C-alpha cells in the first residue's frame, strides 16, 4: 500500500458517513472475513453447518453484497454450545441475527468514480479484500477486528505470519522500503534477483503458492538486511549492500500479485553488524560464559559446545551467567553508541578472549543459540547467529564501551585474574566522528 493509499484508507475509516461504496463493500467483506476465524478459534459453526458448508453460506452472502451493492445484507449465525449439553445428549442452538447494514441507496451517488470494483465473490472466503482495497489489504490495520492475515515483525528482518482464515499465498514476497517521499518501493535485487520468499527454510523445494489453514503460523527465514545474500543465498561475489531505513514485508495472494497483504513497518538496523547484535540481544533466556583459547580459532569447526564464534572453548571454564548480567549484556549489545559505527579493521593480538553462549527465544531449535566472542585485547566482538543461510558471523568494535563490557565480563568471571588485571583500552576509536574528543 502506498502512503496515499494508507491515508485514503484512514479517511474512510474515520468518516463513515462519507465513505465510498467500495469502502462500505469492504466493511461487509471484513465482517464475513472474521467468521471462519471464529470457527477455528472457538469451535463455533456458521449457519448450523460444519465449517465447509458454513463457508459456502458466507460466500453466498458476500456474493450478494458484491453483486447487488446491497443496502442491507443478513446473515444467520448459529452458535452451538455443544460442549455444555454434551453430557445430556442435547444441543442448544442459539440463533443470532446479525445485520450488516449498508447505507441508503442515495449515498451510492457519493461513491467516488473509479472506486474499486474488484470481483469480491471470487475471493476466498474470509480473506481480506486484497489489494487495491486500502482498508482491508493491510494485514496490520488496527480498525479490522481480526485481519485475515497477521504479519508480525520480530527483530528487524524476522517475520511471523499467521492466517486467521484459510488463505492461498504466493511464495514470492517483497521487502519494500519507504522512500523519503513516503512512498513504498520493492527491492528487485534481493538474493541475486530471486527476491524474498514466503518460506520457513532454505530447502530447495519451493512451490509457487502456499496454502495456509486458519490459525496456521509460519516463522519465515529471516531477511539479512542485505541485497545479495538476503535470505537464502549463502555467498556474495561482491560487497553486499545493506539497507537501513523503514521497511515492510508484503505478501501476495496466489496467482494475483496485485492482491497484497502489507506487513507493519519496521526500522532496519544501521548495519549488518548492528543487526546481528540486535538479534543476539533479543529474548535472552539464559546464558553461559567461557574463556576461549585465542589461538584455537577454526572457523570450519562446528559450533558450541567446543567452539564459540570460531574460538575453542577452554575446558572447564564455563559457568552460568546471572540474569542481571544478561540484562546488562543485552543492553550493551543494543547500544549503538557503544560501538564504532563506521568500517574499521584492526590487525591485533587475539587475547583475553571471552565467550558467551546465549539461549534466546526463537521458533527453530537451531536459532535458539547465539554465540558471542569478545577479544578484549583488540576490542572486537564476534556475533554468530543462524538463519536460513546457516551460521553467519559479524564483527563489531566496542572501543567506546570498553569499560562497560569489561565490567560485565569481570562480574561474570569474578575469579579471573587475567581479566582483573586489564587497565587500559587497547584501541580508542570513537563511535562516530561527530563526538570525537579533542
Amino acid at each position, binding site marked *: 500500500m502506498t502512503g496515499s493509499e494508507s491515508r485514503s484508507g484512514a479517511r474512510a475509516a474515520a468518516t463513515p458517513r462519507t465513505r465510498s461504496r467500495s469502502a462500505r463493500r469492504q466493511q461487509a467483506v471484513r465482517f464475513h472475513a472474521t467468521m471462519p476465524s471464529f470457527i477455528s478459534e472457538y469451535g463455533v459453526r456458521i449457519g448450523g453447518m460444519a465449517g465447509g458448508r458454513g463457508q459456502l453460506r458466507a460466500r453466498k452472502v458476500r456474493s450478494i453484497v458484491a453483486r447487488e451493492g446491497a443496502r442491507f445484507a443478513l446473515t444467520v449465525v448459529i452458535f452451538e454450545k455443544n460442549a455444555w449439553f454434551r453430557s445430556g445428549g442435547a444441543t442448544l442452538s442459539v440463533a443470532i441475527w446479525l445485520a450488516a447494514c449498508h447505507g441508503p441507496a442515495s449515498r451510492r451517488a457519493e461513491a467516488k468514480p473509479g472506486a474499486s470494483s474488484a470481483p469480491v465473490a471470487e475471493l476466498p472466503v474470509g480473506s481480506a479484500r486484497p489489494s487495491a482495497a486500502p482498508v482491508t489489504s493491510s494485514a496490520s490495520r488496527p480498525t479490522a477486528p481480526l485481519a485475515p492475515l497477521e504479519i508480525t515483525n520480530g527483530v528487524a528482518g524476522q517475520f511471523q505470519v499467521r492466517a486467521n482464515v484459510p488463505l492461498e499465498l504466493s511464495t514470492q514476497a517483497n521487502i519494500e522500503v519507504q522512500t523519503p517521499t513516503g512512498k513504498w518501493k520493492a527491492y528487485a535485487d534481493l538474493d541475486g534477483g530471486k527476491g524474498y520468499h514466503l518460506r520457513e527454510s532454505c530447502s530447495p523445494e519451493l512451490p509457487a503458492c502456499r496454502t495456509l489453514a486458519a490459525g496456521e503460523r509460519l516463522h519465515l527465514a529471516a531477511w539479512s538486511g542485505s541485497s545479495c545474500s538476503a535470505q537464502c543465498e549463502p555467498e556474495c561475489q561482491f560487497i553486499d549492500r545493506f539497507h537501513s531505513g523503514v521497511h515492510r514485508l508484503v505478501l501476495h495472494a496466489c496467482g494475483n500479485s496485485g492482491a497484497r497483504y502489507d506487513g507493519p513497518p519496521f526500522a532496519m538496523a544501521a548495519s549488518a553488524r548492528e543487526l546481528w547484535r540486535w538479534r543476539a540481544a533479543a529474548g535472552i533466556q539464559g546464558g553461559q560464559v567461557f574463556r576461549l583459547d585465542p589461538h584455537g580459532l577454526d572457523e570450519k569447526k562446528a559450533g558450541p559446545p567446543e567452539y564459540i564464534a570460531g574460538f575453542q572453548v577452554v575446558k572447564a571454564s564455563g559457568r552460568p551467567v546471572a540474569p542481571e548480567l544478561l540484562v546488562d549484556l543485552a543492553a550493551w549489545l543494543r547500544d549503538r553508541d557503544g560501538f564504532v559505527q563506521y*568500517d574499521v579493521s584492526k590487525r591485533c593480538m587475539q587475547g583475553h578472549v571471552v565467550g558467551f553462549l546465549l539461549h534466546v527465544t526463537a521458533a527453530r531449535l537451531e536459532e535458539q543459540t547465539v554465540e558471542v566472542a569478545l577479544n578484549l585485547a583488540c576490542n572486537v566482538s564476534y556475533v554468530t547467529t543462524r538463519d536460513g543461510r546457516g551460521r553467519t558471523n559479524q564483527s563489531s568494535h566496542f572501543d567506546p564501551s570498553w569499560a562497560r563490557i569489561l565490567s560485565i565480563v569481570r562480574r561474570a568471571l569474578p575469579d579471573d585474574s587475567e581479566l582483573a588485571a586489564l587497565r587500559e583500552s587497547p584501541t580508542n576509536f570513537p563511535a562516530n566522528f561527530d563526538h570525537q574528543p579533542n
Partner: protein
Amino acid sequence: MGIQLNFGDHIPKFKDFRPIPMDLRADAQWIRAQAKAIANTKPTANAYFRSLPKHRTLSALLADGSIWVSYFNSPAADGQTYTLGGFSEVAIDARMWRAGRATALGVLIHELAHVNGAPDETTQAEDALVHCGLGNLFELHTGIDLPDTPYRPGLKG
C-alpha cells in the same frame, strides 16, 4: 598519483592517526615501493586481491590516491584501517615500524586487504600475506607461525 604517505601534509579525521615521524619516512617509502614491486612481480598477489569482496587488484589499490598511510601508537593493534567519505585511512603502529621493514610491509598488505573488503571476522586479510610472498603455505595449512615471516596464521581482523 598512488597511495599517499602522511608526512604531515594530511590531517586524518581520527586524531590518533599521526604523521609518519621523520626517522621512519625512508622506511615508509621503502615499504610502498616494495608493495608495488610485489604487485608487479607476483601474479598471485593481484589474483588474490581480485578474489576479495571489492575485487580490486593490489596494483589498483597502490595506484589509488584516496588511500593514506599514517602512524599511530597503540598497546595492542599492529595496524588499523577505517573508511569514511570515500577515503581510506591506514595506520601502522609504532611497534611494527620498529620491528623492521618487512613487518611494516606485512601490516600494510593486511590493511590494504581490508580496504578491498576483506571482512574482519575472517582471516582473509592476513592470508593476503601468503599470496604476496610474506608468508608460506606451510604456515597457511598448518597454522604454525614461523618467526622469519611477518605472516601470522589464523589472525582474524
